[in-house]
C-alpha cells in the first residue's frame, strides 16, 4: 500500500510546478475518532474524466464534498488551477456538483432550476443559455414542469444541466446514476461521456460501480479506507493491479499463495505449491519472499490432462472441475487444485473447445505476461465482497 503511494508520488513530481487542474495535497478529514479521508494526494488534470472508485464508506464522497466546499478539511490543501480553495466558501468556488439524490429545488420549475446558478451570478443572456442547455440534455419540451413531475432519468438530466450550465472548472458527480435502473444507467453513462467530450470540462465522478468507472473515465483512482490504493487508466488498473484490494474490487482475480525463488532479469520465478511459475518483473509488486500470484479468470486456459495448450509458460496440472455454469458468451468453471484451492476459469464460447463437466480432470495454463504478483502481507480477500455486488 505504502509502496504504491510512493510510486504514485514519484510519477507526479515533475508536473508539480505548473499544474492547472485540481490538486489535493495531504488532505485529511476526521469525524471525531473516525478518519474518513487519510492524507490523500491526488492530481486531476484539466479536461479529464476522472473516477473515484471505492466501496461505500471509503471516503470518496467526503473527498468530493471537500472539493465542493461542503465539508472543511481537518488538514491539507486543495488547489484549483493554481488557486488555493481549501477554505473558500462553496458559493465562491468554480465547482458544481450533481448530487446523489439530484437535490432539485421542488418549488421551482425545470427552467428555474437550471437558471438558478446563472441568476445568482447575475449572468447575462440567461434565457438563451438555459434553452441551449435544456436542448443539450433533450428536455426542451419540459421547461415548465416541476421536478416531481419528471422521471428519474429526466431529473438526473436536469441536475446535470443545472450544474453544467455554470461551466465550472470542475464538475463533481456524486453517484448520480445510482438511483436509475440498469438500462437507463447504461444510456446515461454514454450520454455523460458524450457531454463531457463535447464541453471539455473536468469531470470527477464518484461511484462504487467498477464497470461504470471503467467505461466512463480516462483515469480511475481506487479508494479504500480513506486512501487511494491505485490510480491509472482503466486497462492498466485491470491488467496490472498493485494490491489485492484492486485485484478483487475491479473484476475478479485468482490469488494463489507462492514463494519467490529468484529474480533474474525481467522475470520473477515463483514456487506455487511445487510448480514453478514466472511473472514479469514489471508486474511484480511483492518485496518479501512470499507473494500472491494473481491471474484473471478469463486469462486462464483449460484443457485435457497432458494436452498442449496454446499458452507457452505456466502450466498447472491436476485440477478437477468442481462447478460449471454456462452463461452463453462464456462458460465459468470452478476448478479444485491439488492444494485445495478453487480457481475460477472463464472459457470463451468460441466453439473450438468442448465444455467440461463437473468431476473431470483438467490442466490449467496461462501466459506468464498475464500473471501478476502481489505482496503477501495483504489479505487475499480484500475488496472481494464489495466488488461483486
Amino acid at each position, binding site marked *: 500500500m505504502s509502496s504504491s503511494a510512493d510510486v504514485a508520488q514519484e510519477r507526479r513530481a515533475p508536473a508539480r510546478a505548473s499544474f492547472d487542474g485540481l490538486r489535493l495535497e495531504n488532505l485529511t478529514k476526521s469525524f471525531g475518532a473516525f478518519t474518513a479521508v487519510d492524507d490523500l494526494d491526488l492530481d486531476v488534470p484539466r479536461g479529464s474524466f476522472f473516477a473515484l472508485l471505492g466501496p461505500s464508506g471509503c471516503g470518496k464522497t467526503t473527498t468530493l464534498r471537500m472539493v465542493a466546499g*461542503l465539508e472543511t478539511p481537518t488538514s491539507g490543501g486543495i488547489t484549483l488551477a493554481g488557486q488555493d480553495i481549501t477554505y473558500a*466558501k*462553496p458559493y465562491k468556488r468554480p465547482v458544481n*456538483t450533481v448530487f446523489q439524490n439530484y*437535490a432539485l*429545488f421542488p418549488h421551482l420549475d425545470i427552467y428555474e432550476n437550471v437558471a438558478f*446558478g446563472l441568476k445568482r451570478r447575475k449572468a447575462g443572456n440567461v434565457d438563451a443559455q438555459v434553452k441551449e442547455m435544456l436542448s443539450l440534455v433533450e428536455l426542451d419540451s419540459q421547461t415548465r414542469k416541476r421536478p416531481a413531475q419528471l422521471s428519474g432519468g429526466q431529473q438526473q438530466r436536469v441536475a446535470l444541466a*443545472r*450544474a453544467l450550465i455554470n461551466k465550472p472548472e470542475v464538475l463533481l458527480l456524486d453517484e448520480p446514476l445510482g438511483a436509475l435502473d440498469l438500462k437507463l444507467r447504461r444510456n446515461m453513462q454514454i450520454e455523460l461521456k458524450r457531454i463531457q467530450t463535447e464541453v471539455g470540462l473536468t469531470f470527477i465522478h464518484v461511484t462504487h460501480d467498477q464497470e461504470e468507472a471503467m467505461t466512463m473515465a480516462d483515469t480511475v483512482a481506487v479508494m479504500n479506507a480513506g486512501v487511494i490504493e491505485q490510480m491509472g487508466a482503466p486497462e492498466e488498473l485491470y491488467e496490472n493491479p498493485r494490491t489485492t484490494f484492486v485485484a478483487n474490487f475491479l473484476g475478479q482475480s485468482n490469488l494463489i499463495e507462492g514463494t519467490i525463488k529468484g529474480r533474474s532479469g525481467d522475470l520473477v520465478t515463483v514456487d506455487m505449491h511445487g510448480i514453478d511459475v514466472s511473472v514479469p518483473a514489471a508486474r511484480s509488486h511483492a518485496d518479501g519472499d512470499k507473494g500472491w500470484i494473481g491471474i484473471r479468470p478469463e486469462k486462464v486456459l483449460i484443457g485435457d490432462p497432458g494436452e498442449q495448450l496454446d499458452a507457452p509458460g505456466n502450466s498447472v496440472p491436476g485440477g478437477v472441475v468442481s462447478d460449471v455454469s454456462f452463461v452463453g458468451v462464456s462458460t465459468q468453471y470452478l476448478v479444485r487444485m491439488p492444494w485445495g484451492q478453487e480457481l475460477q476459469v472463464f472459457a470463451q464460447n468460441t466453439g473450438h473447445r468442448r465444455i467440461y463437466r463437473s468431476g473431470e480432470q483438467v490442466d490449467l495454463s496461462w501466459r506468464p505476461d498475464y500473471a501478476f504478483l502481489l505482496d503477501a502481507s495483504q489479505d487475499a480477500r480484500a475488496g472481494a465482497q464489495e466488488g461483486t455486488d
Partner: protein
Amino acid sequence: MASTAGTAPVTTAPASDDSSRRRGLTGYVLLVPGVVWLALFFVIPFYSLVATSLYDPGGSVFSGYEMSYQFSNYWHAIQDYWEPLLRSLWYAGLATLICLVLGYVLAYAIAFKAGRWKNLMLVLVIAPFFTSFLVRTLSWKLILADGGLIVNSLQAVHLLGPDGRLLATPFAVICGIVYNFLPFMVLPLFASIDKIDHRLIEASSDLYANPFVGFWKVTWPLSLPGVVSGTLLTFIPAAGDYINAQLLGSPNQRMVGNVIQNLFTQANDYPAAGALSMILMILIVAMVLFYVRRAGTEELL
C-alpha cells in the same frame, strides 16, 4: 340438493339488493354523530348569532327582543365601534408579524441547529400551556408593572421618561398577544422547516447562492406552508382576543373583543354585540381568503 342450488340465486338477488340499500343507509347513519355535532356546536349557535344581530334594538333582556331583520344594526355597530375594530386588526397584524419573526428564528433553530436538544426545545415551546392563560397574562402585568425591573431599567437609561410606563400602552397589549400566541406560530413553522431537505440548501450554496440569497430562494419558499398556517393560527384568535387588552391595556387600547364582551355582559345590548361579532367574523374570513389566494399555497399545502 339440486333444488336448493337452483333457488340459491333467486334468494341471493333480493338479498344483495337489500344489502346495497342498507349500505346506502349505513353511510347516513355513520354521518349522524358528525351532523349532530355540527348542528349543536356550529349551526345552532351560528343561527342564534345571526338572529341576534338582526333583533330590534328597541328591546331589552328583560322585555325580550323582537326579530325584525334590523340590518341597520350593522351600520350602527360600524359607526359606533370602527375604532376598536380597526385597532384589533392592527394589533393582531402587528403581533402576527412579530410572532413570525421570532417564531421563524426559533423554529429554524429547533429544526436545524438544536441537534439532540430538539425534542426538549419543542416541549419547552409548549410548556407554557400547562399554566392558565390568565395566570400567564397576569404575570406579564407584574413584569411590565410601574416600578418593576424593566420599567426601572429603561428609566435609568432614559429610554423611558421618569413618568413613562409600559403597562396600559399598546406596547404591553401587543407584547401580551405576541407572548400568548407565539407557540401557535412556532409549531406549524417548525413542522414545515423540519421537513426541508438540508441537501437542497447545500445545492443552493453549490450554485453560487450566498447564505442570505439561499435562504430567500430556497428555505423561505419551502417553508411557506408553515408561514401561512402559522400566521392564520396567530392572527385569527389574536384579532378576537380581549384578555390581553383588558389585563395589560387601558380603555384606550380597547379591542373589538372587549367591546363585544362588554355589550353582551354589561350593556346587555345583544343586537349590537351580535352585529359586531358578525362583522368581525366576515372581515376575518374575507381577509383569510384573500391572503391564502395571494400566498398561492394551494399546491404547497
